[in-house]
């Protein structure tokens, strides 16, 4: 049983082999995993906002879907794989408070999910599975040895995608 590598909010990291990687308490944020199922190397980024180009405070690439995913691709490739070999899984993007409004400000979860899908598509990375949306928080753990993404939520059974 290897180590559990932790990824915080607006953070990214990588792992391989018998280790696993996790991020806790995803609300409207999205946890994106990029992995090579053959070489068993992977990376995870905890993204908060869709687009770095429309925000002036954009020093931290991991905060945004566009820069987060592209930087993660580089990080994972440095572990001995290529972009062509990578596939993705993701989770999160919930609407934590039940606003009845069309106010875009409050639907950031949905917009984050859309942005992540778009960036993955633009990079020709196939999204194998996702557990996004709804109204509850999620903790996710990814195991490169099995390519399983474990999704935990309060009061719900474990979901493996």
């Amino acid at each position: 049983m290897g180590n559990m590598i932790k990824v915080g909010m607006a953070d990214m990291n990588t792992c391989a082999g018998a280790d696993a990687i996790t991020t806790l308490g995803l609300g409207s944020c999205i946890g994106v995993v990029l992995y090579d199922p053959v070489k068993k190397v992977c990376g995870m980024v905890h993204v908060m906002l869709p687009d770095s180009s429309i925000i002036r405070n954009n020093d931290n690439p991991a905060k945004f879907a566009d820069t987060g995913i592209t930087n993660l691709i580089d990080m994972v490739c440095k572990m001995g794989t290529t972009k062509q070999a990578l596939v993705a899984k993701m989770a999160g993007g919930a609407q934590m408070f039940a606003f009845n409004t069309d106010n875009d400000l409050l639907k950031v979860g949905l917009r984050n999910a859309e942005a992540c899908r778009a960036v993955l598509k633009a990079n020709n990375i196939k999204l194998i599975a996702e557990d996004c949306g709804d109204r509850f928080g999620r903790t996710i753990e990814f195991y490169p040895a099995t390519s399983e993404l474990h999704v935990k939520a309060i009061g719900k059974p474990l979901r493996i995608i």
Partner: protein
Amino acid sequence: MTGSRLEEFSDMEFDVLKEISNIGAGNATTAISTMMNLKVDMQVPVIKFLEFKELAEVIGGAENVVVGILLALQSDIDGMMMFVMEKKAAESIVDGILPGAGGGAPAGERDFTEMELSVLQELGNIIAGSYLSAISSLTNLCITSSVPYLSVDMAGAILSVPAIEYGKVSDKALLIQSEFGDKSLTVDGYFILIPTLEAFEKIFKSLGLTL
């Protein structure tokens, strides 16, 4: 504060925020005392300007179950405010107001009934009102709030909402920590005021602070 970023607050700005939080927490304590029919004491609130990853740690960790009450700000100021407490603390408060309704489930493990959720939302309303009247009285701005929205979930997930708003202009968020209690019960409450950048500027400007 400088330009389009919320990096650090100047000493004077911090003093303003401390004053607001002192008055706000004081109002809130009085209101909660009345609601619970207890004499509730309050410690001086502690204000912190924390990085996102530290926010959840302060409230017991990203997976700790908490109650979050969110209100949208309206009228002169845009933004949101949120009040957070650990679920166990919320259970104690609810038991204090509706004794006997708990049903004997172990601490932290029960689901709140409709009535209990209503009580918590009302609590959120009262606390929000307390902070807003503190700001209004200091700044002469007219600020109102929406109805309260409540969520019971992991701290990380609930805090992602204010963190994302702050994330647009900063890598940190402002947290006000207050401890309420009487002889038998002490509860930590966390208050996060999330004005838009323009709203922060309005608040400071109305107090004669130029940025």
